[in-house]
């Protein structure tokens, strides 16, 4: 064995040092390069009446984060979710959102199923310069109610209503329209949209029959609806109200007199109503699971959701998946978690996840996307436990969204330059 020279020892040590610097101990390397996980703060009502919808959305969030991590994370950093329960209370949603930003240092805030949660989260995100994106409908798209860090990937009430109205118009279902709705601010946004579209297409708007929120018996309201002698009746109700309304509208036989269109529905409502209750009713949805037969990405998502939750994903669930992916992919593309940079990159961003092409409109942060108008199936035509509808038509494009001018924004400038 030849004696080791001083030069050889130095070379070996230098080589070992370089190798350690490149590969290193994972622990040392992660800390040294600032490789903490990117945190996404999620606020959903894990307890209360929307608890199961929240579980579905958390499953969608999990799948989206797994997809992002499998593709290398954000700038090579792993993504983690930090989940908080809003308890279906605005003040709790606000407190938890604040905690996610101040204590957990979340890079993004997502969540909120209903309006009051969204308002609370938007307030916190805007105040703390953190991007906030809703899982539920994007209903704050009016100048004076938005900040530049606020995004909504789901449909706006206007889009939802305009899609249903355009569908009715294209399908030549008749020009005399009426709405049956619960009496609170969300359906009132639909009333405004239907009225405007009716004017545009020359339809006769016969008004609204308002039922209180939480109505158990819709029968007393139906004679007024029938008396309007409308060709089309739009129904804007949600959750338990929609289930009761659908059952009683079917019992009343309104579909024999007019086309019945639920402005928007969720798979869980059709399940709660039971097979056949939505038969011959049309319903708008941001996504429906039959899209798995059209888009391979939707099929992959569907399979994973069914494996995880043992049930088909609903429209809001798919929208949740897309929301989380949209934020993280954008941050990865701009190689930054800086709020202003990501927000600017989101403005005008085009993407396609589980359905047709989508784009975040720069001037108001509304997602220009398709709405799927579906027809309810008879119980005997259902092929499995979730097969309540068939997609009839995708209605979308900028034509279904309210104009930026109509919302008080300058259509030529991105929102970040207007607020």
């Amino acid at each position, binding site marked *: 064995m030849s004696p080791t020279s001083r030069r050889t020892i130095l070379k070996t040590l230098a080589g070992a040092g370089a190798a350690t610097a490149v590969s290193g101990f994972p622990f040392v390397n992660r800390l040294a390069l600032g490789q903490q996980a990117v945190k996404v703060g999620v606020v959903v009502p894990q307890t209360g*009446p929307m608890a199961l919808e929240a579980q579905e959305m958390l499953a969608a969030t999990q799948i989206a984060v797994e997809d992002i991590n499998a593709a290398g994370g954000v700038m090579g950093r792993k993504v983690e979710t930090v989940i908080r329960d809003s308890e279906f209370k605005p003040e709790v949603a606000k407190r938890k959102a604040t905690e996610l930003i101040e204590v957990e240092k979340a890079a993004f805030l997502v969540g909120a199923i209903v309006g009051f949660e969204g308002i609370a989260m938007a307030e916190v995100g805007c105040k703390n310069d953190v991007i906030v994106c809703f899982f539920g409908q994007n209903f704050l798209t009016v100048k004076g109610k938005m900040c530049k860090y606020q995004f909504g990937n789901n449909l706006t009430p206007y889009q939802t209503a305009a899609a249903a109205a355009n569908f009715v118009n294209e399908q030549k279902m008749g020009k005399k329209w009426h709405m049956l709705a619960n009496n609170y601010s969300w359906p009132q946004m639909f009333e405004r949209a239907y009225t405007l579209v009716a004017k545009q297409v020359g339809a006769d708007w016969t008004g609204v029959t308002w039922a209180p929120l939480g109505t*158990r*018996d819709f029968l*007393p309201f139906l004679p007024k609806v029938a008396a309007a002698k409308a060709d089309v009746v739009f129904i804007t109700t949600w*959750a338990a109200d929609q289930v009761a309304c659908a059952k009683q509208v079917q019992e*009343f036989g309104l579909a024999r007199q007019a086309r019945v269109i639920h402005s928007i529905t969720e798979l869980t409502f059709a399940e*709660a109503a039971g097979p056949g209750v939505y038969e011959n009713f049309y319903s708008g949805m941001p996504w429906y699971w039959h899209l798995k037969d059209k888009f391979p990405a939707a099929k992959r998502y569907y399979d994973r959701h069914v494996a995880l939750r043992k*049930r088909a994903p609903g429209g809001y669930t798919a929208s949740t998946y897309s929301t989380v992916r949209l934020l993280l992919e954008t941050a990865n593309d701009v190689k930054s978690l800086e709020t202003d940079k990501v927000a600017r990159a989101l403005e005008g961003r085009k993407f396609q996840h589980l359905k047709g092409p989508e784009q975040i409109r720069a001037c108001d942060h509304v997602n220009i996307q398709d709405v799927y108008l579906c027809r309810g199936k008879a119980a005997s035509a259902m092929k499995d436990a979730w097969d309540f509808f068939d997609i009839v038509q995708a209605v979308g494009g900028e034509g279904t969204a309210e104009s930026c001018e109509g919302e008080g924004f300058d259509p030529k400038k991105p929102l970040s330059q207007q607020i």
Partner: protein
Amino acid sequence: MNGCILILVALGLSIVFGLMGIINFAHGIFYMLGAYAGWLTVQVTGSFWLALLTAPAAVGLLGILVERGVLQRIYGTKNATFAGVLVTYGLAIMIPDLVRMTFGRPGKPFAVPAALTGSLFRLGEIDVHAYRVFILGVTAVLLPLLWLLLNRTNLGLVIRAGTSDNLMVQLLGINVAQTWTITYALGAALAAFAGVITAPLVAVAPEMGGLVLIECFIVTVVGGMGTFLGVVAGGLLIGEALALTGMLYDVLADVVIYLAMALVLLVRPRGLFGQEGMSEE
């Protein structure tokens, strides 16, 4: 339909308050549990008619457990009324979440029984369906039976006497504890029965009890706490007010029951059939 449901649910609420002095915030959950128990029975046996028996029986038994296991611990304690509110309110929060955890997704499909589907006759613009006539009929049969129970039986005598002057009934050596348990179970069973018969027309969901409870409190206040006739009159008044407003001036439907309550209380502060001294300890 609304009036019938309100009467059946509010009766238990009113009698429990009249006899036991408990403002029972848990009463709505018995209505909800009745719908779930009915759904479960239909799933297992396929029989809606059996559900009309099993659901009230099962929920009545649960009522016994709640009364014996929870409420009996607060009788006679300092601030028993306030404690009763807290305990029953706690149950009203806890049990719907337990139902969500047990039964999964938010709603359960519950169809109208095949024998009662379809329209019987037409009334103006409205097809009157067999199932709605059934709800009317079954309420019309139940109410006289309940009246007989309260007015022509020893149990009813004790309940009525206890509602008027509970302390005196106890001084007479009557086993009031047992009467309270039976009354509480009866109220729970009635609410459950209302839950089963409503289920085919609404969403069977954990939160359904909370919504009906508010209306039932208004019914009992309007009718007069602790009175049978008061509940019937209050239920019909509130049910009709809701229905007529829906037909004639729907934008007022949100507030009409509160207006009706305010109006009745201005004219008769004890409610339509409330009597001096009754339930005023």
